[in-house]
């Protein structure tokens, strides 16, 4: 029964705390009265009743403390104490609403920003991939050594035959699959979508461990045999969008790229493939795929994923893959005949999932936002210290009345943790907005535009406020509360009773002691802000450098878009289609010119090795590399790429006439230094296939930075699309007089009239594309700049606070100085000097730290040294101005102190 006795006791102690406390009181009264009576009796009246009562009290000890300890001992009494502390804290906050609002908002800012960045870190770097046993999944790739101008790579795609060889020669993988992303035109009824899909085989879903929510996977036959079935799997999103989530979708037909496919399965909600954005999957071996038939051993377009067999470690698998890679190289040697040996490698999918630059940027931002939170904490700690000195007397009285120091610290910490958690909750609003913003970034296209790798399995849409983020916020709120609350709490409860009890609480009566830790906090704030400013300054300067780069073409007033081609059209009719389309577009009112290219700026496209006919063939491996651009003759004019020599491509360059080619300035300089390039002959190198031979250079045009601002222009050649009609994925360019987007509607209408059912997609201005290519560095600069601005503002507020406080504390001293003849300027100077000393100490420390850590910025920097003196000088200036401003206001107040009043107080 004792268990129930105990339980009953505890429940009563919690549920009826008032009664419990009254009983304890009564019991102690009884004790004291009886003891007093006993003492009176023992001394036989020698002591009077009062003396006896005092003696009993002394024997009893610290009654308040005993009662409190008793309450704590009653088991769950801490809950009651916590409730008490919380109520007390709330009362305290209600009495000081200004203080509370400032503290909560400061913390909300810090914690909210941290939660937002944490969500991104969690989604992109930490959260396990959304597949069963994600750590058993490996990304398998080919490797190539350095070849001439190409750097070595370890992320090369597979060809079908090479991967078949790998599959047959290892037992380390339980399953392996090939896939690649491809945009599809999807039509159902009268709806047409141009969206991302994937080509794959029957092992894709089983390797990942994903089961169709409805229907079935591809069969082995459909997955691997040419044209075995016109079947398709669709995503949950597409099912909702085109079929209203109708379960009778199985067996229905969907038209992809103009061909009918039978839907055999619907995948579970949220699954978007390894590309992270797929809506539809087709077997790689269907005839809708123009490259499906007999995929050759050098047709490297497949990405490979494999699941480790039981008991095999990733390292073992990588070793086996490397061994098999050598055999594959022996079976399919490099075609250049250079003795270049390819290989194969495997690494955990988890590591390959995010572009390393995204990883480093995220970590930099995470660090930066952590510093912001530290500064916010320092600020709130300062507020607490200022307030604690106001409450000194209250606390001294409570200590004198017997409050234990532990209890007081507990109670003060309850206040600060409550503030911290409230800040966190308020900050969730900010975090929500922040995560929405981050999630809406098209990170993959941002990186693509910048010449980087695609984020594979995880897009930014994975960034959201999940339970982990909420937990993180809560933990941050609590930790923050302890961090900024502990020092003030310990300091406030330092037992130095007499001095505080004597304190009349008036200005000037306080000693200067409490200011020491406040000065340290503010100096630390300034130092942290300087570190952030340095980072932001460097990144902003890099952005400026990037934006100032001349890309070599005029992005203004240009509308660009792509048109999906009709698969069944013959090459000559597609040429005709494009030619007429461009004519019609050029005739639109407001349009000055129209053209197209297969390899526009800021899009990754293949280059080729060049053979220069005016000299002996270069040794294989030393042939020059050039970007190849198939354009309509007017395209260079549309983009205002200057003609430097000779003529442009024009109507003369048709099928049947000798091939004409334009080279850019870099190519002319590299290939024919000091010579006139006009009339020179070049072809495609034999090692690169030799498809194009003897084209005559007719002109030289200006350089264009095709890969974006971060890479210098290379050699480029331009050929007329009309001379070699072919299937290319073209981008159309329309130069306009006014706002290019105003032409989007008419251009669409023209295309729709010209070729109904062939969707125009990816309609954007060229400026937008250029902006997108800078989005990555702009994002880094924006966020770092924002954090630095917040940090600076917080540091300024902190400086202002501590200076203003010191002025208030020294009013009497200032009065004496003024009375003794100090001028207002003297007094103001004294105050400002104090601010400058703080700024110099904090700023100095900050600069030293900044010099040590700015190297982590890595790829965020562009043509700016991590210790760029100009940036650092600018920061010192900004800091000096801010510190001056923050101390100027209290300085003016100090200067206007009337001596008499100050002395009277």
């Amino acid at each position, binding site marked *: 029964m004792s268990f129930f006795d105990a339980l009953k*006791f505890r429940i009563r102690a919690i549920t009826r705390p008032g009664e419990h406390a009254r009983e*304890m009181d009564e019991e102690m009264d009884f004790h004291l009265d009886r003891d007093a009576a006993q003492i009176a009796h023992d001394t036989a009246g020698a002591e009077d009743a009062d003396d006896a009562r005092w003696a009993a009290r002394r024997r009893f000890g610290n009654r308040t403390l005993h009662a409190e*300890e008793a309450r704590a001992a009653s088991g769950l009494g801490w809950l009651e104490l916590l409730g008490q502390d919380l109520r007390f804290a709330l009362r305290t906050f209600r009495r000081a609403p200004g203080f509370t609002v400032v503290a909560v908002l400061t913390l909300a800012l810090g914690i909210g920003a941290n939660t937002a960045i944490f969500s991104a870190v969690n989604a992109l770097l930490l959260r396990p991939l959304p597949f069963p046993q994600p750590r058993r999944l490996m990304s398998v790739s080919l490797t190539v050594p350095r070849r001439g101008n190409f750097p070595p790579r370890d992320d090369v795609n597979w060809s079908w035959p090479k991967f078949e060889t790998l599959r047959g020669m290892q037992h380390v993988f339980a399953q392996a699959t090939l896939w690649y992303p491809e945009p599809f035109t999807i039509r159902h009824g009268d709806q047409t979508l141009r969206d991302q899909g994937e080509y794959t085989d029957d092992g894709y879903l089983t390797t990942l461990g994903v089961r169709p929510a409805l229907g079935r996977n591809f069969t082995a036959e459909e997955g691997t045999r040419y044209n075995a079935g016109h079947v398709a799997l669709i995503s949950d999103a597409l099912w909702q969008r085109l079929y209203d989530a109708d379960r009778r979708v199985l067996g229905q037909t969907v038209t992809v790229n103009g061909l009918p496919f039978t839907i055999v399965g619907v995948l579970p909600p949220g699954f978007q493939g390894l590309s992270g954005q797929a809506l539809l999957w087709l077997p790689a071996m269907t005839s809708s795929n123009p490259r499906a038939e007999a995929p050759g051993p050098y047709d490297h377009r497949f990405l490979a994923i494999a699941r480790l067999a039981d008991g095999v470690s990733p390292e073992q698998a990588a070793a086996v893959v490397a061994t098999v890679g050598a055999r594959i190289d022996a079976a399919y040697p490099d075609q250049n005949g250079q003795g270049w040996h390819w290989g194969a490698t495997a690494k955990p999918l988890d590591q390959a999932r995010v572009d390393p630059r995204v990883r480093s940027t995220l970590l930099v931002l995470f660090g930066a936002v952590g510093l912001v939170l530290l500064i916010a904490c320092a600020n709130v700690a300062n507020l607490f210290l200022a307030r604690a000195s106001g409450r000194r007397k209250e606390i001294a009285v409570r200590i004198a009345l017997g409050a234990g120091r532990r209890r007081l610290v507990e109670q003060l910490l309850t206040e600060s943790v409550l503030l911290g958690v409230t800040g966190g909750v308020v900050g969730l609003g900010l975090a929500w907005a922040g995560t929405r913003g981050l999630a809406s970034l098209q990170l993959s296209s941002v990186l693509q535009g910048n010449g980087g790798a695609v984020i594979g399995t995880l897009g930014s849409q994975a960034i959201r406020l999940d339970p982990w983020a909420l937990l993180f916020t809560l933990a941050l709120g609590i930790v923050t509360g302890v961090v900024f609350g502990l020092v003030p709490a310990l300091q406030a409860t330092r037992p130095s009773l007499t001095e505080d009890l004597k304190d009349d609480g008036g200005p000037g009566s306080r000693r200067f002691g409490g200011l020491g830790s406040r000065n340290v906090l503010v100096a630390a704030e300034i130092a942290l802000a300087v570190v952030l400013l340095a980072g932001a300054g460097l990144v902003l300067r890099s952005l400026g450098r990037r934006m100032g780069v001349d890309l070599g073409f005029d992005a203004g007033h240009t509308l660009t878009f792509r048109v999906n081609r009709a698969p069944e059209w013959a090459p000559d009719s597609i040429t005709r289609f494009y030619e007429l389309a461009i004519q019609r577009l050029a005739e639109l009112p407001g349009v000055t010119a129209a053209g197209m290219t297969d390899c526009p700026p800021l899009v990754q496209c293949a280059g080729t090795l060049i053979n220069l006919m005016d000299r002996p063939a270069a040794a294989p491996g030393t042939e020059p590399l050039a970007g190849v651009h198939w354009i309509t003759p007017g395209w260079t004019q549309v983009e205002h790429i200057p003609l430097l020599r000779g003529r442009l491509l024009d109507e003369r360059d048709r099928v049947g006439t000798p091939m004409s080619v334009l080279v850019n300035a870099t190519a002319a300089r590299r290939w024919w230094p000091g010579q006139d390039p006009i009339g020179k002959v070049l072809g495609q190198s034999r090692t690169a296939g030799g498809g194009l031979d003897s084209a005559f250079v007719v002109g030289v045009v200006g350089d264009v930075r095709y890969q974006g601002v971060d890479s210098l222009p290379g050699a480029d050649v331009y050929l007329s699309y009309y001379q070699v009609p072919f299937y290319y994925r073209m981008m159309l360019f329309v130069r306009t007089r006014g706002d290019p987007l105003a032409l989007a509607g008419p251009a669409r209408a023209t295309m729709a009239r010209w070729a109904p059912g062939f969707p125009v997609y990816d309609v954007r201005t060229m400026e937008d594309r250029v902006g997108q290519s800078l989005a990555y560095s702009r994002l880094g600069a924006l966020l770092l700049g924002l954090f630095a601005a917040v940090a600076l503002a917080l540091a300024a507020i902190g400086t202002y606070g501590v200076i203003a406080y010191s002025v208030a504390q020294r009013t009497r001293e200032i009065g004496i100085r003024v009375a003794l003849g100090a001028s207002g300027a003297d007094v103001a100077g004294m105050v400002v000097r104090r601010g400058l000393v703080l700024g110099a100490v904090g700023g100095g420390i900050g600069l030293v730290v900044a010099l040590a850590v700015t190297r982590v910025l890595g790829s965020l920097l562009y043509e700016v040294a991590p210790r760029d003196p100009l940036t650092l000088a600018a920061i010192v200036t900004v800091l000096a101005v801010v510190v001056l401003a923050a101390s100027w206001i209290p300085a003016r107040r100090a200067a206007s102190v009337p001596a008499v009043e100050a002395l009277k107080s």
Partner: protein
Amino acid sequence: MARTAKSPRTELLRGTLDLLILQTLTIRPLHGYGIAQHIARLSEDALSVEQGSLYPALERLQARGWVTSKWEPSPTGRRARYYTITRSGEHQLGEEISALDAVVLAINRVLRRA
């Protein structure tokens, strides 16, 4: 009374107060003051320091279910809270006495050999 503040006996009391209370209650139900008097008398005032610290101990014993309490009229007529030892309290007392005996025995052995 100043001598009580830092007396080494305080330390002793902390460890064994629970034991003494339980032992006291085996005689008969008592109120807090009665328990304090009893302990003080039997230990010849050596353990009478800070009588108030008895109350946290009583709360603790109740929370563990070793002691229960009831309000009853005292001989003076004023009501007082009487504490009773429970069955598990008696069991606990037995265990603690054995443990204490073992420690005392061990200490004695050491002292005799030293």
